[in-house]
Structures are given as C-alpha cells and as structure tokens.
C-alpha cells in the first residue's frame, strides 16, 4: 500500500507482531481492523490455530480453518521458529520495526527463549508488549493450565448460569476469550497512546479470568453488602429473597426473552396480556401495588406471570412479540440464533457484516465486521493469509535477505 494511503488509516503507519493463539486472537484482529500492519508469526509447519474448526466445507485442512479465516483477516503471515537461535535473531530484527507485540504464550516461555519483555524492551524501548494469559503473568495461578471453560469457572460468572437441577453451564462460544481479547485491545490502545505521547513502551499484562470477571460484578455486590450468595438461574444470578427478573418463553417459531419485573415495563406487560384476554386474574386490584406502584414483586407472582406469558407467547411469533412489546413499552426480545443475527434486518442495514473475497477458493465469505465504525478504518477487508505467504515480502524485500539465505533458513527449519 502506498505510504499516503496507509497514513489515512487509524493505525496505518504502525506495525503489530501477533503471537497469539485462540485465547488472545481477538485483540490483534481488532488492531488489524483499524488498519495496523499486523504480522502473524507462525511456526514453520503452520500455526496450531489452523487446526481449530469448523472448516470451509468441512474440509479439515490448515488452509481452510474458519477459525483462522475469522481471526486473521487483514493480516500478513510469516513463518519463524522462535526456538532456534537464528529464529530469535530474526525476531529481534522484527521487534525493532514494531510498535506493538501481542502474545498469549504461557507465562515465562518467552523469557526462557531470551526474548521476554525485559530483553525486548532493551531492543525497542517504544514497544508496547501485551501478554494475554488465563490468570496473568505472575502470581499463584500464573502457571495454571486453562481453557475458556476454566476461565469462566474461576471468574465467579459460571456459578450464576444454569438450571438449578443441573450443573452450572457455559456459553457455547468462548466468551472468556472474547472478553479478555477485547480488554486487551482497549488496554493496548491506551498504552499505545502513551507511547505516541512520550516514546515509552511498557508491558500490558491481561488476565482473561479477571476480564470475564466483569460479569460477576453484581453477584459480588450482593455478597458483599448483604452476605447472601447468588446462585444460578436461567435469567442471570438468582438472589435469595429477590424475584428473578427474566423469563424465556417458547413461541410459535422459537423463543423470546421477557424482562418481566422491570419496573416501568410491568404494567405495559400486564395490560398487553389483558388486551389479549390472557391475563388470568392479573388485573385484580390486589396486584396494583407491584405492577403500578413499583412495589416489591413477590416470587410467587413472578412465577404466575411467567406461566401466563408462556401461554400467551405460544400464540405469537417472536417477531410479532418483539415489535408489539416495543410499541407498548414492555421488554421482550427475540432469542436470536446465529442465523437470525446474520439475517437480522437491523444488523444488515447498519452494514455490520463484511464480505471478503477468497479468490483461491473462488468464493466470498461473510464475516462479522468491526463493532463500531470510524473515519480511518479500512473499507475493504483482506482474507486471512496462507502459511508464510509474506515471507518474501518481509524477509526478502524488507530485511534484505537474498534468495540463497531464504533457502538456507527454509531448509534449516527456521522459516
């Protein structure tokens, strides 16, 4: 890209070295969506995250992983064996050219190779070095093995999700990694700002567990103030003595969520059921207090409303229920599947999705785009790179290695 074009992008002039696995992948993806020159560094045999499914047309090959495709849009790829001395030498050269490094190795791994934060900081004092790990780089849990599920469990969040008669239950997508990756992106941008002001780099140490712990904040308050322990429920954390606030009801074509006890939406919900002739005894003045005066909503009443609402919802589609609720000031939303989201008229109208050409597959694939729009974001997105696709560009043209040297590096397993 011409220099001038690059300068028009938010992070156009800046380089990011990406050494993350799936636990940190969202952070560099976001930096790439802001126009940064993100170089993904893969082991010579290809990055392990290329083995994460699902796969394009279910063909389980490293060049067809939809995980790889999704998280490496707009990046370039080089191969490099960091466990060899020559590889480390090349890596140090790259670090000198970089503004930001994002990695998610086990704590201590880079130190052992002699390319940890302290060493890299000496080579390039401007470098913002972001580590994304399950529990942080230091401390009693730093060496723990983890997974997205284990991070959820240790965050206090998992304990509040699920049916009381079954174990606590996760979200099918790795939300802990999403949340950790997003906080890492926010913190990296803050450290980058400081770098631009002062020329000083630093280590940004992000713990995934601590990030997803943000979801625990309300149960934490309840425990701290009242000394009662919230437990799991299907509508968020359940507090003894407080009516659960939500219901999930089956309707004609799926499910809807209803915020039953929301204080200004109770009466519209009651009136709505009454207008449909399905309010049972709810219009009895004895219920005026909780519905109209914002009074305490007894648990038994909540269960009663849930039942009436379920019977009512079964007669409508989720679309009808959501739009009518908005008109009436009640709180009902479609429970959308991934397919519903992709086809959602609003999300489409706001051009959230990006269509990315994959000429080699003779196909165009739809991905989620950026979560916000800014002046200075690239309009066209590029497909994820092949293994070492940019070795020539970066090692050859930029670092000035000749063909002979590249061949030797290749044969000796460095690149």
């Amino acid at each position, binding site marked *: 890209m011409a220099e001038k074009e690059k300068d028009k992008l*938010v992070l156009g*002039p800046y380089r990011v070295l990406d050494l993350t696995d799936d636990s940190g992948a*969202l952070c560099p993806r976001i930096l790439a969506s802001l126009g940064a020159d993100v170089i993904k560094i893969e082991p010579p045999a290809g990055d392990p995250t290329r083995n994460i499914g*699902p796969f*394009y047309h279910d063909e389980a090959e490293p060049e067809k992983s939809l995980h790889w495709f999704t998280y490496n849009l707009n990046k370039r790829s080089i191969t490099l064996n960091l466990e060899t001395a020559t590889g480390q030498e090349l890596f140090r050269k790259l670090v000198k050219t970089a503004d930001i490094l994002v990695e998610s190795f086990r704590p201590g791994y880079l130190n052992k190779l002699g390319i940890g*934060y302290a060493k890299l900081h000496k080579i390039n004092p401007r470098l913002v070095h972001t580590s994304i790990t399950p529990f*942080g780089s230091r401390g009693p849990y730093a060496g723990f*093995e*983890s*997974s997205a*599920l*284990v991070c959820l*469990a*240790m965050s206090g969040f998992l304990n509040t*999700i*699920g049916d009381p008669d079954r*174990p606590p*239950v996760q*979200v*099918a997508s790795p*939300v802990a990694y*999403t949340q950790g*990756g*997003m906080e890492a992106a*926010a913190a990296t941008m*803050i*450290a980058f700002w*400081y770098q*631009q*002001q002062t020329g*000083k780099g630093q280590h*940004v*140490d992000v713990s995934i567990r601590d990030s997803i712990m943000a979801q625990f*904040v*309300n149960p*934490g308050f*309840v425990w701290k103030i009242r000394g009662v322990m919230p437990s799991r429920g299907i509508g968020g*954390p359940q507090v003894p003595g407080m009516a659960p*606030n939500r219901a*999930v009801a089956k309707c004609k074509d799926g499910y*809807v*969520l209803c915020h039953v006890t929301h204080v200004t939406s109770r009466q519209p919900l009651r009136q709505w059921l009454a207008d449909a002739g399905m309010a049972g005894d709810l219009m009895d003045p004895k219920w005026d207090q909780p519905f109209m005066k914002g009074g305490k909503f007894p648990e038994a009443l909540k269960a009663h409303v849930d039942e009436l609402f379920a019977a009512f919802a079964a007669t409508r589609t989720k679309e009808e229920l959501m739009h009518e609720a*908005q008109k009436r*000031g009640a709180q009902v*939303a479609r*429970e*959308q*599947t*991934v*397919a519903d989201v992709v086809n959602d008229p609003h*999300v489409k109208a*706001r051009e*959230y999705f990006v269509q990315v050409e994959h000429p080699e597959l003779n*196909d165009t*694939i*739809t991905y*989620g785009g950026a*979560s916000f729009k800014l*002046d*200075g974001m690239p309009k066209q997105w590029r497909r994820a790179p092949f293994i070492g696709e940019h070795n020539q560009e970066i090692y050859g043209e930029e670092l000035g290695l000749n063909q002979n040297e590249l061949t030797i590096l290749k044969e000796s397993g460095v690149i």
Partner: protein
Amino acid sequence: MSSQRKTGKMALSGIRIIDFGMGIIEPTTSCYMADFGAEVIKVESYSRLDFMRGAEFYVGEKRDPDTNVAFNRYNQNKLGALINLKHPKGVELAKKLVGVADVVTESFASGVIKRLGLGYEELRKVKPDIIMLSSSFAGQTGPYHEFKGQGALIAALQGLDELTGWPDRRPISPSAAFCDFYISWVWVVAIMAALEYHRRTGKGQYIDGSSLEGGLDILDTGIADYSVNGRILKRRGNRHPAAAPHGVYRCQGEDRWCAISVFGDAKWRSFCRVIGNPAWTSGEQFSSLLGRLQNHDELDRLVESWTMEHNVEEVMLKLQKAGVAAGVVKNAKEMYEDPQLAYAKHFWEPKEPGMEAFTFEAPSALMSGTPARFQRRAPLLGEHNDYVFGKLLGLDSEEYVKLMEEGVIA
C-alpha cells in the same frame, strides 16, 4: 496537523472527557479511561440523576444516591458536576464545558441528545475537532433505532442466550446483562482509535455506538460457519468439539463443582494417572479423542464418580499439578478470597472511613509503566462544581451563584 498535549504520569493524563451517560455501559467506558488517568467529568442534575444512584445495591437501610455501591463501582475516579440540561442556559453551559474537552460520551435513548440541542453538529460548532460517542441500544440509524430495553434484551438479540444452556432445554439468559459488562471495552477501543486519528489528522468524529453490534464478537466463528457451511452454532451444555472429558463435575459437599478440560491424548493419560488409573480408563471406547467424544455421556458419569469423592479445591490442584486444565466453579465468597486477585491487588481497598462497603476494582490489564490507580470514589452530587465552573470555565462567583439560583447549576 498534530496536537501536542501535556502528558503526565498516567497513560491518559491530559485527556478530558465529558460524560453525560447513565447506567452501566457508557459510565464504565469513561470509568476505564479514568482508571488510567483521564479526567472524566460526569454531568448530572438533581432533576436527572444517573439512575444507578438508585439501584438495588445500597449500603444499610437507606437508599442514598451518594452511597450506592453499583454507582460507585461504575464511576470510580471521576469528577462530578451539576448542569440542568432542560434549562436553555444549562445547554449553553454544557457547550462551554465541551469547548474545553477532548471527548464527549452520552447514552441517552437514540435521538434525545440532539433534541436537547447537544447533538454532534451543535457540539462541532463549539469545538470543531470534538470526538463524540453515543452509546445506545441499537444505534442512531436502522430499523431498530428507536428500540429501548435492558441489556438482557440486547444479549438475546446478539445470540448469546441461544448459545447458553443445554441442547434439550430453552436458551438461558446469562449474567445480570452480558453486554453491560463487556461493551465498555469496545467503546474504549473506539475512543482511543478516534483520539489517535485526531492526533495525526487534527480531525474529530462522531461514533454512533450500537450496543447490539458492539457485542457481536461473541459469535466467534459462528457467522463464517453459517455463511459457508449453513451450520447454526447452538448451545451444547459444557461440551467442547475437540476436548473430552470437558465439563463441570460435581465434587464433595453442597453444590460444589469443578470445570475440567482435557485436550489431546497426552493430557488424557495425565488425567487418568491423577485419578489413579481405574480399570474403566483403559476401556477401548476411551482410547482416542474421537471415542471419548462419542461416549461423552458415559465418560462424564465415570469422571464424576471420582470428583464426587473429592474436595473441589483438591480436584483442581491435583489436576493442575499434572498439567490438566481444571478450575473451581468459584462462588461470590471465594472471589473475594481469591489468592491470584489478592496478588494482583485487583480489589482497591482505600483506607478512608466509610469506604469499606464499596467494591472498587482495578482493570484486569496491569501496565508496567503507567498502572491504573485509585484516586477517588465516585463523585457525590455536584462535588466538583467549584473546580468545573470556577477553575475550568472561569465563571466568577457572581455568575456562579446566579446560575445556581436560576436552577442551571442544579
């Protein structure tokens, strides 16, 4: 054009944010930036308090707007000033404040700030390079732009609930409201990106934040999988497509659970050693990952026959010692006793009297050079009026008193 600004000890020293937001998403956005040193001025009025001041989470018997625990958590490190935006002079005063700011954030329902006379086009007239973020349910444009609702509704629309729970049961709506405690960081990225763009180009901009889109990264590879393979990612209990055993297992005691994730055959063998290699572990059906995935129900029962005999902490530590991913499903009490959080000084515990009941938390991101700092609890109503109207805007005492009497600073 690039602007030089005064820098200080903290990462965001020198940045001033005017915060008209309420609730959780927008206040926690500017709060995160305040934790790293931005000067955030929260604007409220007696006629329009941040409703979080009245939230369920209050100390003692009385709902006091100044001692609400949730409000204090979401607005720690900010300053507070009072401006009545329904008064024409209040709008003028707010504009003056915007004139000395870098960033404005707001979370009124879509379109409201414009009707108040403080829309982006108006603010640009005062400060041509202002950066403004609006955070609303679904954004300022599109078919749902007038939608209103709690965060739980947004999570439903984002597809989170359909991904949560058991395949044989209805979706589950997790968290108090998932997006409420996630999207702040998305907005921080957007604001920081806009600040960097401004630093290099001198241009401000308007960010039309939609919480609905703000949280769609949770769909992970679901969008591409649907687009390419027509497959719809669904809730799947505690299973993982490429690890087994993978689940949440009952341990000794009342409602105690341990999460366990076993990736690959080597970890499986380590797992078997930890549980003492009982005869069933050498069963042919469990010898490969594929076999373990296909016989996961049976595997879960057998794993649980071991975990149920042990204390949850012991299950975690024994497995961790052997390099197998395992974690206690921690409850609220245990979070406050967590040794790693104590090590990271995650909970800020200021020593001043009256602070004990509050929960102040540090960002998860620990910065080596410019760490986040606790500087003050959330502002009392109008606590920093003198600084804001006197020092920043230079009102003399006569004007100041007049505006108070007229119900503008109120």
